[in-house]
């Protein structure tokens, strides 16, 4: 069995079928890009896998167990984290505090321990603080720890979002448009970051992205969605030639090489 | 018993319609600005008092008196919107407290001003109606008719006129509406004018049916909030369904059980409905909006 596998995943909002019988399989350590024109249901796929939305039909297997019907935090506990299209952050928190929050899963949250602030709690908190700083340095937010999150520029907000999801040291990371609205070098940095994470921590990535060129450059495999259906899957080079994909994109974004 | 049964139904419907009349203005304000406008009850009360004096004491023509008191109350409402709620950026919590304080102040002021005697607006429609076994006074019938007319009118205004469309646009998404060049302030003021005029009508009729006194507004207010939330915020059909439902519940439980039992049943049902369907019958999920903070 694959690392992550969806079998016949389907989501219908009333009449409209957003995701239709999607079968997607990802191996450990892969970087898979999911592309498609607007409203192809890419984000919905993420919402289904991460448990944000209940799926109408189908199953999702992760790491050997079925995670369908689990709530978001249970799935996160199993090492499947995600980011959001529009960066969601704890706006009134400082960056550092955001990151501390991101480390929730490895934190001591026993009510009485917290109430009496036992030495054990203190110790774990200080460990976490160190971890947080470390991660922030790694993603290049080291300089802005004390800023309030909602003052961050778009690019950095997205980076912080990724950092947050790294907090629950995931085995699989779903990135929802990590590069959209970034300028060229920000895109480069993000791509580098993703590669580095894959190599250093052996994280598997699924990336939904509009910036097709970047995805093509970044991912090992690419799946193309249109109207909730998977119309093509394969290596970036093959996809680029795939006629159906190009047709799907005609009149869509002009990013296709 | 069948006669009594018919009476219960009839009572319930009329009660419901009267609740709705008060709730309409409130649901509009709540829907568009997402503020818990505790002063609305005081608007009802002030309108009733001005009706009492203009129509009941100085014997001005009924419609004219109604228009005048509606104008007066609207002025007050717009004042609140402009000088209290806008500076507070329509932030839910602070506006709620502010409105609460204002309503305390207005109430005690009017106890001082109007004295302890409960007043009564002389009825315009004397006499009784009598359909198969059940009784209904003409004034109640009139109130119901007016309420239905108002509801329909409001619905048309919101869905047909340009202004109404603007209001609904703001209700859905004020930022987007702003981008479309709709003046939020204008819309808000307009909403307050409409809401207060509705309150004026409601006040007039509850003054005719019941009593005119400083506390008359606060009592139905909680009921109206229930109606709004059960029906779904900003939804007129929702308000109608919820209003009629509450009216019938009250009528039945008060007729068949004692006072407290009715009280208990009412709140138990409210809790149940909100737990089962938090967004109300016709409501969209406003939780994000109501809990949002200015950042």
């Amino acid at each position, binding site marked *: 069995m694959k690392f992550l596998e969806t079998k016949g995943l389907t989501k219908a909002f009333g009449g409209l079928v957003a995701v239709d019988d999607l079968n997607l399989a990802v191996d450990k350590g892969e970087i898979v890009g999911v592309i498609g024109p607007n409203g192809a249901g890419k984000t919905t796929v993420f919402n289904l896998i991460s448990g944000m939305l209940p799926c109408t039909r189908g199953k999702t297997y992760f790491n050997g167990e079925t995670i369908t019907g689990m709530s978001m935090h249970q799935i996160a506990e199993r090492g499947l984290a995600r980011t959001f299209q529009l960066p969601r952050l704890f706006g009134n928190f400082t960056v550092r505090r955001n990151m501390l929050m991101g480390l929730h899963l490895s934190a001591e949250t026993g009510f009485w321990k917290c109430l009496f602030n036992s030495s054990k709690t203190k110790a774990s908190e200080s460990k976490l603080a160190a971890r947080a700083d470390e991660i922030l340095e790694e993603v290049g937010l080291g300089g802005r720890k004390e800023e309030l999150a909602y003052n961050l520029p778009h690019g950095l907000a997205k980076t912080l979002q990724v950092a947050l999801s790294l907090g629950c040291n995931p085995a699989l990371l779903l990135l929802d448009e990590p590069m959209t609205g970034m300028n060229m070098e920000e895109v480069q940095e993000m791509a580098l970051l993703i590669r580095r994470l894959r190599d250093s921590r052996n994280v598997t990535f699924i990336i939904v992205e509009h910036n097709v060129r970047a995805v093509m450059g970044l991912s090992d495999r690419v799946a193309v969605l249109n109207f909730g259906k998977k119309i093509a899957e394969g290596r970036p080079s093959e996809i680029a030639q795939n006629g159906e994909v190009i047709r799907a994109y005609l009149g869509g974004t002009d990013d296709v090489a | *018993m069948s*006669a*009594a049964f018919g*009476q*219960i139904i009839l*009572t319930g419907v*009329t*009660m419901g319609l*009267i609740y709705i009349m008060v709730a309409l203005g409130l649901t509009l304000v709540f829907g568009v600005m997402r503020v818990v406008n505790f002063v609305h009850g005081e608007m009802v009360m002030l309108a009733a008092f001005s009706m009492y004096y203009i129509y009941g004491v100085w014997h001005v023509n009924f419609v004219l008196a109604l228009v005048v008191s509606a104008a007066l109350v609207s002025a007050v409402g717009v004042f609140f919107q402009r000088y209290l709620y806008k500076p507070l950026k329509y932030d839910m919590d602070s506006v709620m407290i502010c409105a609460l304080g204002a309503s*305390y102040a207005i*109430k*005690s002021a009017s*106890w001082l001003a109007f*004295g*302890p*005697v*409960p*007043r*009564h607006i002389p*009825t315009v429609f004397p006499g*009784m109606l009598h359909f198969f076994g059940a*009784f*209904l*006074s003409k004034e109640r019938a009139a109130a119901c008719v007016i309420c239905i007319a108002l509801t329909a009118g409001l619905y048309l205004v919101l869905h047909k006129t340009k202004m109404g469309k603007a209001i609904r646009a703001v209700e859905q998404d004020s930022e987007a509406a702003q981008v479309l060049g709709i003046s939020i302030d204008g819309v808000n003021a307009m909403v307050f004018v409409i809401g207060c005029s509705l309150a004026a009508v409601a006040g007039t009729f*509850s003054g005719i*049916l*019941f*009593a005119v*006194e*400083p*506390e*008359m507004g606060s*009592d*139905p207010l909680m009921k109206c909030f229930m109606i709004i939330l059960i029906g779904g915020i900003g939804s007129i059909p929702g308000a109608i369904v919820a209003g009629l439902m509450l009216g019938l519940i*009250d*009528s039945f439980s*008060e*007729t068949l059980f*004692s*006072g*407290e039992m*009715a*009280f208990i049943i009412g709140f138990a049902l409210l809790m149940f409905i909100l737990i089962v369907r938090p967004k109300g019958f016709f409501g969209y999920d406003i939780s994000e909006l109501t809990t949002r903070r200015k950042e």
Partner: protein
Amino acid sequence: MQRVLIGLASLLLLFSAVTGASWAAPKELVLGCNFILSGPAATLGIATQRGAEHAAEVINSTGFKVQGEQYVLKLEYFDSKYLPAEGMSNLEKMLNHGIRYIFTLSSGVSVPLVERTNMAKMLQLTDGSGADHLTSPKYPLSFRVTPNNETAYAVYPWLAKKYPQIKTIANINPTDEAGFTESETRVRCAKNLGMKSIANEMYKRGATDFYPVATKITALKPDMVDFGCTLGRDQALCGKALREVGYKGMFLVNYPDPGAFVEMAGRDAAEGAILSSAITEPQTPKQKELYEFYVKKFGSPVINKFYDSYDPIFMFVEAVKKANSLDPAQIAEALRTVRWDSVYGEMYVGMESLYGIKSCFCRPLPMGIIKNGKPMYLDTVAWPSSEVIAKLVRD
């Protein structure tokens, strides 16, 4: 944290600066008025305030002597908002002001205080109901200044005599202790007089729509509906509703505001209603004088609470004079012996036979009726003798 500290400190200073200016006006006898001046029941408070105020004016025009020193009566008003906690705070405030005689409105507020007022040796006058709390040997310092459920002992025999055709009675009362006490008394009286109480309705205080209650009662077709201790607005609305759903029988309206009742219920609905213990048309010169005073100052209709709260003040002052001391206990004893010619007629403290202690003010009850849209004087019922009462409370 230190913000809290500094805030608190400054507040406390300001606080003691303002309230610490404790009053000390010589030769003023202060009666603390723990009235409901805001909130749903403010009607009572404001009306009572008017009566007491006027009484004080009249008294102070001459003043009175205690132990050879000239005194004037001063009323200090506190707003209890019909909340027990507020009433308690008011009490503390009054203790702090050295006030030892208080006048509390409504049982909801006065009952919680009674334990404390007795401990503090304060004299409490109240209009609240509640037999074993306000009028009992346990609390010799608390008095009920307006008979409430006791009026039934006078009214029901009168009814039985005057309207023998009344066989079935329906009682309506608010769901609170006052209501319960009232309905118990009235139901028992009716039973012992051979009438049948076929309905005993409790409605929620603050309800405005009485169609449901009316529907229920009309279905039972009683000869008379007794509004019990239902007050002002509610009586009128309920009467109106009853007529509208087709009730044909009589009304017995207790402690009403006749004018307001007619205005709100409407002439036809109010027609023929019997008004118990209310002054409809002023008969005696005293009533006339008060009536004219009120109408001149506040305009008609006159609220009955105005009359009710007028005389107790005089009774109190009489007691002070008689006791010739400022000690609440002595004043209380004196009060039990005072006989005062009140607006209603002779007023005294009695009901020992029922409560085991004289602590309820007794007075004749003027009865009225509404004839072609006007409240008319009908009769005056003397306060029942203890034998009559004994007959009415036997079971």
